């Protein structure tokens, strides 16, 4: 594959969110890297991780393997500053979770594009290309800031 190109960068204020070009993306801020046709490894983008920061708790609500609907609630994540429900990025089959994260979720912070992967998903859904994902970030950035501000104030 042609993953030779440099990663894209999205500026979150001063922070550079790195968007590698060797994978595809979902609109809910996950990356999907093809392991074999239609089988993807899934993880948080650096944009997600920047907003979450130091994750200390991750819990899955479903057991692998299982079939998923788009936007199905599949788990919870919590950091010292944020929490979120986690939703499936696409319709498909969740094949396995990254078991290591359940004991220690820190790789999510330290290596979100590598050992911090979340789960493997079999899907034929069409995802965003890196440039499309960056455009999606661009488009949503103001809204995201408003949402964050709304919650901080």
């Amino acid at each position, binding site marked *: 594959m042609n993953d030779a190109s440099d990663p894209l960068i999205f500026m979150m*204020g001063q922070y550079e969110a790195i968007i590698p070009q060797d994978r595809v993306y979902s609109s809910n801020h996950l990356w999907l890297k093809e392991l074999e046709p239609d089988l993807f490894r899934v993880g948080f983008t650096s944009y*997600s991780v920047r907003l979450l*920061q130091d994750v200390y708790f991750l819990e899955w609500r479903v057991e692998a393997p299982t079939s998923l609907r788009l936007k199905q609630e599949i788990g919870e994540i919590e950091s010292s500053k944020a929490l979120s429900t986690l939703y499936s990025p696409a319709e498909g089959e969740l094949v396995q979770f990254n078991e290591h994260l359940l004991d220690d979720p820190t790789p999510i912070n330290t290596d979100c594009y590598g050992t911090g992967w979340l789960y493997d998903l079999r899907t034929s859904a069409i995802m965003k290309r890196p440039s499309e994902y960056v455009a999606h970030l661009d488009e949503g950035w103001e809204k995201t800031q408003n949402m964050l501000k709304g919650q901080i104030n």
Partner: protein
Amino acid sequence: MAGKKLTVVISQAQGKHPVRSKLEEEVAAALLMDPQVSVSLVPHLYDMSADHTGLVFLRSLKGPFVLLGWQYPRALHWTLDRQQIRGHMGITELIEEIDDDEEAIDDQPSQAIGSTEMPNRNIYCIDLRVSSNPQEYIEEIHRIYEEENQQLVQLTFGSLTNGNGSSNGVAQNGSATNGSSSNGNSGLTFDLTQYILNPAESDTPSAKEEIAQFKATQPPIKRRWYPVIDYSRCTNCMECIDFCLFGVYGVDNLDRILVEEQDNCKKGCPACSRVCPENAIIFPGHKTPAIAGAEGEVAGLKIDLSKLFGGSDDDAVDLAIRERDAELMADGREMVGKSVGLAERHTTSSRCRGERDELDDLMDELDSLGI
């Protein structure tokens, strides 16, 4: 000489949660042997219907008490208030860690309507999720015991006796009057002492086993879902009653907002808590701490990113509208979107504020907050 016994009530976890059950039993067993304490076990506070004997028992308590339960203290306190079990919020030192410099800022709106008919006693609500170590609860209860007995020098609480035979005055009071005249159950006779654990009976091999058996004899109760109003925040603005289309809210004879038909509320729906301008509406079982009644400063610091990760892109009010529409649809009714029951400030085109914000300013702000 020992002062008056302190009443400690444990509100049990929902369902059969083994870890929670074990902690309840350990705490109860330790307290059972404690001469300073009278300990009772009631079903999950939030799930008991208004005429449940467990609530009748709680209403019969006239003095100060400690309530241990599986919710945020604020949620416990206002659930009690809703059941006419009132008192000052006793200050407990056993609370969730609050982040460094964010000290408890007590900025209750001055227009808040407050509770009514508040007797002069303290109710100490403690969240059993704070620690898994029973000893911490025991120590805190001893601290409260000392605190209350110091206050007794100035205050007199009725005529509770501390004799040998009667475990405490509450039981006498309860069984003599059935504690029920006020709630339309005068026909029934309750033995309110059923909730009080009696050390005399527990010379069996293990107090914990005894307690487990005691719990097993209590019939399970169904789970409920309804809003609980925090009157220390509520300003009686009526936005919730306008918003909810399921007839949950009403007003009392003083025109104060009240949750009138709790079982009309839609399970899992927290919609009205999102439109309340004072964050006064608590759903104790909701997963978001701010909605479940965490103290403002704890809740305020955790940012809910669910919208970002696929929940929806809406702001709180949009979300509330969607949640409400979903429930209307489930009821076979017409969806109403934002056309019904929203205060004007939500419907006039928003977002003129904030758009001038510099990205960098925001990130700096986030950085300073450590997000």
